[in-house]
């Protein structure tokens, strides 16, 4: 990964996306530099997940520009995009039922150098080691969430797209994940977090993008959070 903090890893310009006829993204613009952690905030259905899915080419149709490490990906098939060093932890977790936890963990192909070893991962998530041989979807929700996180750490991806990783998790695990994220940041990973849980995201992110109706309606740097608290509350319907 890059040590020049200034290099732009992800740059999205005027991204539009559709599911069938429903026009879910209506011009997203955002930019993430190497080693940064940004969040996408917004209400349910605002289009945060769709933004991540669009980056990976998983929506029905998309237009605009998405540059990853300076390469235009809007016309690429998903597997080529992923191989630019992306790791995705989907909202629905996407654990494969027909594989064991460990198989799930080992399934993903390498997309970059410097992925973590199995030992490191088990060190980070001891629960997974215990459940290594149970079918993936038999794990508890929290374990599945860890598994979904863990498996992309193995692949050497350095741009991680994480969707609602704290969703439905017990507070202790949420705390644990907070530590993991900090650790990842320290290791130089670039992170895009989609979060409902602002309390969680607040202390991790360098910047927050608030999305509403498929558009970025507000960009708030970590330093401005306090100042813009009321605007944020309004936007998030708090």
């Amino acid at each position, binding site marked *: 990964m890059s040590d020049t903090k200034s290099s732009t890893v992800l740059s999205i310009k005027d991204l539009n996306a559709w599911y069938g006829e429903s026009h879910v993204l209506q011009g997203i613009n955002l930019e993430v530099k190497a080693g940064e952690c940004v969040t996408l905030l917004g209400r349910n259905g605002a289009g945060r997940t769709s933004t991540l899915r669009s980056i990976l080419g*998983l929506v029905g149709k998309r237009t605009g520009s998405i540059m990853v490490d300076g390469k235009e990906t809007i016309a690429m098939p*998903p*597997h080529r995009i*992923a*191989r630019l060093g992306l790791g995705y932890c*989907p909202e629905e977790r996407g654990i494969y039922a027909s594989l064991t936890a460990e198989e799930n963990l080992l399934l993903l*192909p390498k*997309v970059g150098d410097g992925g973590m070893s199995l030992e490191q991962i088990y060190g980070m998530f001891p629960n997974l080691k215990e459940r290594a041989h149970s079918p993936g979807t038999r794990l508890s929700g929290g374990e599945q969430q860890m598994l979904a996180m863990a498996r992309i750490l193995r692949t050497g991806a350095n741009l991680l797209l994480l969707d609602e990783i704290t969703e439905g998790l017990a507070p202790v695990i949420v705390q644990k994940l907070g530590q993991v994220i900090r650790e990842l940041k320290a290791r130089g990973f670039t992170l895009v977090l989609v979060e409902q849980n602002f309390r969680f995201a607040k202390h991790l992110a360098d910047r927050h993008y608030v999305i509403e109706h498929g558009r970025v309606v507000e960009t708030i740097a970590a330093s401005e959070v306090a100042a813009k608290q009321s605007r944020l509350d309004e936007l998030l319907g708090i």
Partner: protein
Amino acid sequence: MFDIPMQSLMAQLLVGLINGCFYAVLSMGLAIIFGLLNIINFAHGAQFMVAAFLAWIGFTQLPMLLGPEFKLNFWAMLVVAPLIVGALGVLLEKTLLKRLYHLDHLYGLLLTFGVALILEGVFRHFYGISGSSYDPPALLQGGVDLGFMFMPIYRGFVVVASLLICAVTWYLFEKTKLGALLRAGTENPKLLQAFGVNIPLMITLTYGFGVALAGIAGVLAAPIMQITPLMGANLLNIVFAVVVIGGLGSIMGAILTGLALGLLEGLTKVFYAEGSTVVVFVIMAVVLLMRPAGMFGKEK
């Protein structure tokens, strides 16, 4: 009805098992293809036939055309013929099938059905209908007396070879990394692609592999069955039934059902020979009524 001596019953079961092996290998290929591509490969029988013809061509026609040093023996053909039909399968997938994935199953079925007709027609045009035969390799000729029956060595070989192929395929698909990828791909291909797996390529190769399995079955069948353009079409209906009973897309289901139906068909031949073809369909109807997704299938 029960005046059939134990010994001959054993013999019949063994014979049933041999047929079951063909069903298993063929339906395994169909199951693999359906699993990932969601296509019922109606061309499977024709591809089986093409491989049998290729074996025969390599063995008898090539030396006639190019000189005796070009004679390809059985063992060579067991490798070469499946590779050729597999490659043809890849070509078919790349050019035509891949355009159909977003459509109803019906279109894939119709397309492959058309391909089957073309292949049958072409081979009939060049090689006539009564077909040709092809002897087992010298090593496997003759037979052994098992006491209750005379067992041709070649048939024994077919059983061993098929079970081996089934076992290897099963291992490949259920126990290896590749298998894990394939199973994951069957579950949620889009997501897997987003993790960096080249799903389109995987689909193509899977089709090629499924077709190659039909090819292996074709070469194995060549010394037993008359090699005719229709040899596959005649088998195909039963093989479909096997796959459907086993559960579309289930490899283990295909193997076990293939073997079981072979045995059952063998038994029917003893007790009510006329019904030996239809019994498979009766079972299929009954199974589908009770378990809509087949014995081993998961309902989506």
